[in-house]
């Protein structure tokens, strides 16, 4: 059974077609880099895969289940980090993770493990509002994996990460199906085995060919 199976996936905002029609299949454990210029449809695709939005047309199945009808059931198996980190500045790093762990029906142990994994144990009691941008990004990653999801959907998570943070990214991707939107080709090549280049919301050739990517700007 495919982890991700999309057929004729379309997303519209008013009269504008932001994505598709797009076909996509991912096996369990496969890692896909989603590449493309601004407005290519990367975030739109990732939000559909994370069940944060409903497709306007087409069919999306995750592990054989319809992603619209079974969205609540599927959400225990998906970790999503978008452009906004979704953290609370007034809460400490540990409190942020404990809060989300509770919403997933988990306890403090899982939150502490995620904090450890993100290398933030030393700043566990510091408020999120006092953390550096890079530390916040790591905390956002820890939030996305606190419930140990099988499918990880990350939208440009590398924006503020240093070399150690990028190593963390590679570490948390291990053993998971990953969909990663990024502009960083080196990172994409390092972490992902496959790539999808989007242009105007549609799949546009083999992105590992650098000429195409350079043309995209």
């Amino acid at each position, binding site marked *: 059974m495919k982890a991700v199976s999309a057929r004729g996936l379309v997303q519209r905002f008013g009269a504008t077609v932001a994505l598709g029609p797009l076909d996509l299949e991912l096996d369990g454990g496969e890692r896909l880099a989603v590449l493309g210029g601004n407005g290519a449809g990367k975030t739109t695709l990732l939000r559909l895969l*994370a*069940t*944060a*939005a*409903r497709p306007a047309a087409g069919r999306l199945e995750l592990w054989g289940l319809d992603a619209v009808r079974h969205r*609540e*059931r599927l*959400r*225990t198996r*998906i970790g*999503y980090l*978008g*452009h*906004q*980190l*979704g*953290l*609370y500045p*007034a*809460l400490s790093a540990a*409190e942020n993770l404990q*809060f*989300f762990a*509770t*919403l*997933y*029906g988990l306890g403090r142990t899982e939150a502490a493990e995620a904090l450890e994994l993100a290398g933030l144990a030393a700043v566990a009691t510091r*408020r999120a509002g006092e953390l550096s941008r890079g530390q916040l990004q790591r905390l956002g990653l820890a*939030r996305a994996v606190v*419930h140990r999801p099988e499918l990880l959907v990350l939208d440009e998570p590398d924006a503020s990460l240093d070399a150690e943070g990028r190593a963390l990214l590679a570490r948390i991707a291990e053993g998971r199906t990953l969909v990663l939107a990024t502009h960083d080709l080196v990172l994409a090549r390092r972490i992902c085995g496959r790539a999808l280049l989007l242009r105007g919301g549609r799949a546009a050739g083999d992105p590992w060919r650098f000429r195409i990517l350079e043309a995209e700007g």
Partner: protein
Amino acid sequence: MRFWNAVAAVTLKDLRTELRGRELLPALAQFIVLALVISNFAFDMTPGITVHLSPGVLWLVLTFAGLVAFGRTFAAEKESGSLEAMLLTPAGPSAVFAGKALAAAVFLACCEAVLLPALAVVLGSPIDAQVVASVLLATVGMAALGSLFAALAAQTRARELLLPVLALPLWIPFVVVGGRAVQAAMAGQPIGGQGLFHQPLAVLLDFDILFLVVASLAARFVLED
């Protein structure tokens, strides 16, 4: 059990955030005291008149304090992306909504803890158990509706305008019935009258149950994409 754990987590998170940030409650307390002081100067508050004007002042101040309190309930979380992060957990929109509505009710109750004593001090209004019960019962239903419309308004750009337009008409039943109960209590009269005003506290309780059920059912459609 998981549902109630999620509700408690969301409520505690909102309360903890407010206690640390101290953005909303101090400003609301100031607003309440200032509104009462202005009322004191604006109306001719002689002892005989106070009893008739105080209930109106109480509900006006409470209504506008409620609009400020509920206006922030979902808007800030929508902007920071944390609302979406919560909704993408299996806790679900109903638990998120219930937790936030409960926290909003606590904020409004805190406003009332300032408003009622201030009403007694500034306007010399008599405050008894029936006044407190009326206001607290109205708080529950107002919080349910206010949070629902705040969630709806947060999805739009004109949220500051939309919330009063949506919430105020549906808060009218609480103001009318609660106002009558407070008026009777302050005048030292037994609760009486016809229809809705025969037992206003029971009617307020009925409104609470009705609007809690309606808001809980509607929350899923308002919060989900």
